[in-house]
């Protein structure tokens, strides 16, 4: 007996299943926007995240100096406290650090580096994870076993240790050629190689489901490359979870970069990320020069918090089970 089944979500609140299908359509239809508009905190988080992205993109227009250009740093202007304090000096709104770097400019440019490292790292890990997940899911057997075993081990190694390892390897391989830009590349690589597992697992799971469906066999019969066909089906299905993982990993990647900086393996002080700024500023905490660490720290915390809030909301919004 065939039933005229129409997905009535609200009508049948206890109905489950169908979580995987047609995510994109459903999301854009309005659920996402609706739950977005309903959550004030998400809207604030999104606004802040957007603001931070804009600040990073337009840093060079907004900053009073380019903190990466040593010629623009004046030692004479070092350790000026924020503008509103007794010793404040224009134009250094948030004060300056030991090198005469304007803290606000350093935050804007550091934001740029942190976001760049984070985003590139996430993109790399996403691409890697999706590729490995597809491979594992499609070929199965020994290939799958190998990839998933590596994933298991990798998952129990914290990213920070992997990143330290990769950093160490890169340092000894590159040695002298390790300038600021290649350090950035190394960080991206380190983060990219540390975070791929979740993507791989998600994609692999989805591939396993899709693999046995008729259309794959049909596609193979008419000579279409099955992986391509599957990619077309798998990706939309997994886009939701992948987006969630990517958002949360972006926050994690930025923190990881900051922690690597703390352990001395992050961005160099001549091109500081937010994490490097905190590490530098941390040395002045006891000295009473709190603004050197406080503002970058605050910026990092707010950025991560906002991204995490967005990630949380995305996860809930895209997971019908949790609504």
């Amino acid at each position, binding site marked *: 007996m065939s039933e005229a089944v129409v997905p009535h979500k609200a009508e049948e609140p206890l109905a489950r299943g169908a979580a995987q299908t047609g995510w994109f359509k459903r999301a854009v239809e309005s659920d996402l926007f609706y739950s977005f508009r309903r959550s004030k905190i998400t809207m604030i988080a999104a606004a802040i995240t957007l603001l931070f992205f804009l600040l990073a993109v337009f840093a060079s227009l907004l900053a009073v100096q380019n903190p990466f250009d040593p010629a623009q740093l004046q030692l004479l202007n070092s350790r000026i406290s924020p503008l509103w304090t007794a010793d404040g000096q224009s134009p250094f709104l948030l004060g300056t650090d030991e090198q005469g770097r304007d803290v606000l400019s350093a935050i804007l440019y550091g934001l740029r580096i942190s976001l760049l490292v984070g985003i590139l790292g996430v993109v790399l890990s996403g691409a890697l994870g999706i590729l490995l997940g597809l491979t594992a899911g499609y070929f199965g057997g020994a290939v799958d076993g190998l990839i998933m075993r590596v994933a298991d081990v990798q998952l129990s190694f914290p990213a920070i*240790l992997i990143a330290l390892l990769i950093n160490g390897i890169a340092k000894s391989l590159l040695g002298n050629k390790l300038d600021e830009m290649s350090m950035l590349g190394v960080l991206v690589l380190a983060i990219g190689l540390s975070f791929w597992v979740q993507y791989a697992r998600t994609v692999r799971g989805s591939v396993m489901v899709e693999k046995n469906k008729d259309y794959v066999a049909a596609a193979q019969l008419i000579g279409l490359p099955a992986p391509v066909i599957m990619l077309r089906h798998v990706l939309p299905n997994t886009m939701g979870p992948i987006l969630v993982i990517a958002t949360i990993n972006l926050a994690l990647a930025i923190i990881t970069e900051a922690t690597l900086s703390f*352990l001395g393996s992050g961005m160099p002080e001549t091109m500081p990320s937010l994490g490097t700024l905190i590490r530098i500023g941390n040395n002045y905490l006891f000295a009473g020069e709190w603004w050197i660490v406080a503002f970058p720290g605050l910026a990092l915390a707010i950025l991560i918090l906002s991204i995490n809030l967005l990630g949380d909301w995305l996860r809930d919004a895209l997971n019908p089970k949790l609504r």
Partner: protein
Amino acid sequence: MLAFTLRRAIQAIGVMIAVGIISFSMFRFAGDPVNQMVSMDTSGAERAAIRQSLGLDDPVIVQFGRYVANAAQFKFGISYQFRLPVTNLLMERMPATLELAICATIFAMLGGILMGVYSALRRDTLLAHAFQAISLIGISLPTFLIGILLIYLFSVTLGWLPSFGRGDVVHIGWWTTGLLTLSGLKALIMPSITLGLFQMTLIMRLVRAEMLEVMRTDYIRFARARGLTTRAIHFGHALRNTLVPVITVAGLQFGSVIAFAIITETVFQWPGMGLLFVQAVQNVDIPIMAAYLMMVSLIFVTINLVVDILYTIVDPRLRSTVSRAH
């Protein structure tokens, strides 16, 4: 079951060999240990002699062979800095790290499960929202910053807790413990919180999500339809089913805790393996770095194995079937 365990064990050995290659090749090229051992005005001839006595001039293959053969017997050589067998050093430091990691894990589990269960069952209460906020802050602040802020607050400003070290320790055989002295316990508080906070928020979020998930399952609905008490449903059925994946994750995370201790131990000068590792990295003390990596991998792999096996014991569904779903 036996075949499964055996297969996992073989895989574990494979992993260890891979890690061995990585650790060897990385540390083989990570800087010149000789420079760290001598002063700047040591002559070239003396340096060369030291290089030779360390075997650093042999072909790489020979060095690797020697390395693997020794590692298999838990011989990681002599620390360049301390001139003591690395195995002894690590063993000496291990109790500190394990004690810290265990305390941090207990703290994380207790806090995480309590807060997670509460915020799943009382979803819209103020306290649940407060827990959610704490969990967000826990994953949004870098560990080292939290540690430093704690030191600033509780050691420097209030003077309640020690800022570094383990306090007085008691020797029980080769093991040392800070759990039996007041100063040892006080010294454990801040590092455990710092180390455990991230795990706690992870566990809290996981418990909350799992619990919400479980509360929606048919068997919980059916349990309610059977008229079981709320208590029995929440704590007999929902919590137990929640805890299976949570304990698995927490178990697997224990390896991460040990590795994350690198940061906590650095901040609190905790005399554990992580601090030893950081100092070794700074001093290019290759034997310690290699041994640490191998040791930590061994712990990871062992935990993985144990969790895999435990998982099949805890979850009856998996006892007959050997594959573990992820």
